[in-house]
């Protein structure tokens, strides 16, 4: 157990250091979601009251697209110099690698969300009418829901032709209940019309179920060769 966490931490620190030096994923992700936000601003020009009803959807669509940009780069880095093959033959547990990658992606997407949320607030003149603190568990659970399955499916789509397009094809259908929870929950908090409690529970259930499934099946996917 101890070695599992040590390995997870080592891989995570390595990924963060690589990202810090190159800033590949973060820069492309940031600029990409900035573009999405700007396009949304041009496409929809709502009143403050209307925007409360639609921004929940817009925010999460932007984050979903940006997350796919980041997730596609997760494993590509390990393919160079056969790092992934080296990992495969090493006695390190596969789940340590998976957890490190998932946590790394979680960190990157969270940073992105923290930077992009103010933009949405500015562009759409948002005032939160419901309990605003509930947005934090919604964001954390929602991001983890996207990232944990995304990391798994990115590993899966590594071995397919045109892998860049394969990831959203695999990820989006399975993510539909999570996206529904995030969007409906965020809208509930923004409008203050009903409670977001149900959606937090839904996202929590989704996270627990799919984290377990990913950890259970990742070994099979990694060793698949």
């Amino acid at each position, binding site marked *: 157990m101890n070695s599992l966490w040590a390995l997870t931490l080592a891989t995570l620190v390595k990924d963060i250091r690589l990202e810090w030096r190159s800033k590949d994923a973060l820069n492309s992700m940031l600029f990409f979601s900035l573009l999405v936000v700007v396009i949304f601003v041009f496409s929809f020009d709502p009143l403050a009251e209307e925007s409360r009803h639609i921004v929940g959807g817009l925010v999460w669509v932007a984050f979903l697209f940006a997350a796919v940009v980041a997730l596609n780069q997760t494993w590509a880095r390990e393919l160079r110099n056969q790092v992934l093959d080296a990992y495969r033959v090493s006695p390190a547990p596969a789940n340590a690698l998976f957890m490190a990658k998932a946590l790394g992606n979680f960190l990157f997407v969270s940073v992105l969300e923290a930077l992009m949320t103010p933009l949405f607030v500015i562009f759409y003149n948002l005032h939160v009418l419901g309990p605003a603190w509930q947005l934090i568990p919604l964001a954390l659970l929602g991001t983890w829901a996207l990232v944990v399955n995304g990391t798994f499916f990115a590993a899966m789509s590594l071995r*397919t032709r045109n892998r860049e397009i394969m990831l959203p094809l695999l990820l989006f*259908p*399975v993510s539909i*209940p999570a996206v529904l929870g995030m969007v409906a929950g965020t809208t509930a908090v923004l409008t203050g019309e009903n409670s977001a409690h149900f959606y937090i529970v*839904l996202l929590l*259930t989704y996270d627990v179920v*799919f984290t377990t499934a990913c950890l259970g099946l990742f070994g099979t996917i990694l060793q*698949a*060769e």
Partner: protein
Amino acid sequence: MKRLFPILSILTAIFLAYALYQALVVAPTDALQGDVYRIIYYHVPSAWTAFLLFFINFIASVEYLVNAKPSSRTAAKWIVIAIGVVGVIATFLPQVQALLPTGMRPSAVATTVLAIPAFYFLVGWLFPGEKLDVLAVTSAEVGVVFCTIVLVTGPIWARPVWGIWWAPGDIRLTSTLVLWLIYVSYLALRRFSSSAQTQMMAAALAVFGALDVPLVYFSIWFFRTQHPQPVIGGGGSMDPRMLHTLLISWMAFLCFAFLVAWSRFRLELLQREVEQAHAMESLAGAGASAKASLPLNRSA
């Protein structure tokens, strides 16, 4: 087996024609909806067939995954038996019965739960080894076709009856659509994956899909459904003559699905045999050329 195929095809064609006759002529016209309701004789049997095929795909995928290791294989066997036993006992406890949606009969739930071990052992017995994966592809492909029929015929019926093509947020519509999307992505993965491990990955995706469907159901819990109640095991009621036609229609559709799945299954098996033969041939060829070139290399 080969000779059985044309006979079965003719029988299925006759059966389908009979079901169509029953649906269009014999079944009484609905008092409220008029003749438009007759589409259910295609819609509902397609839905049942599609769900059955997806269920078979899930069972085959799980079995394919656990068969990779002997230890997980034994464990899975006991888990499946436990699901059957505990599930059936639980449906007869009053505490659990209180949780069931109104109108859902405990006996229907128990039968559904029993289907899990029954199918698991039947599928494992009939389709050993690689055939499990062939079964998974076949059932997913045919299932997607039937699910497409469901999604097309549904709106055609809904437009005159509800006044809208699609009810967004409806629990049945959304979960069927998501199921369809998941299985289309499953087929896309199989098509685009080039490695020898496609089978494992596809099986893993099928498990993810199966985990997803209850969550979709749960996520739209808040919305009420506009969809008519299920006829069997649910709270819906129906004229016995209509139910009779519906069941005949389903039987005909099942025969048709079986026929299509069977020919697809054979085709996939043959394709794999051909691929294997090609691989063996090129291996043998490479071995022979390596042997032939060995003395040359040495002399050089």
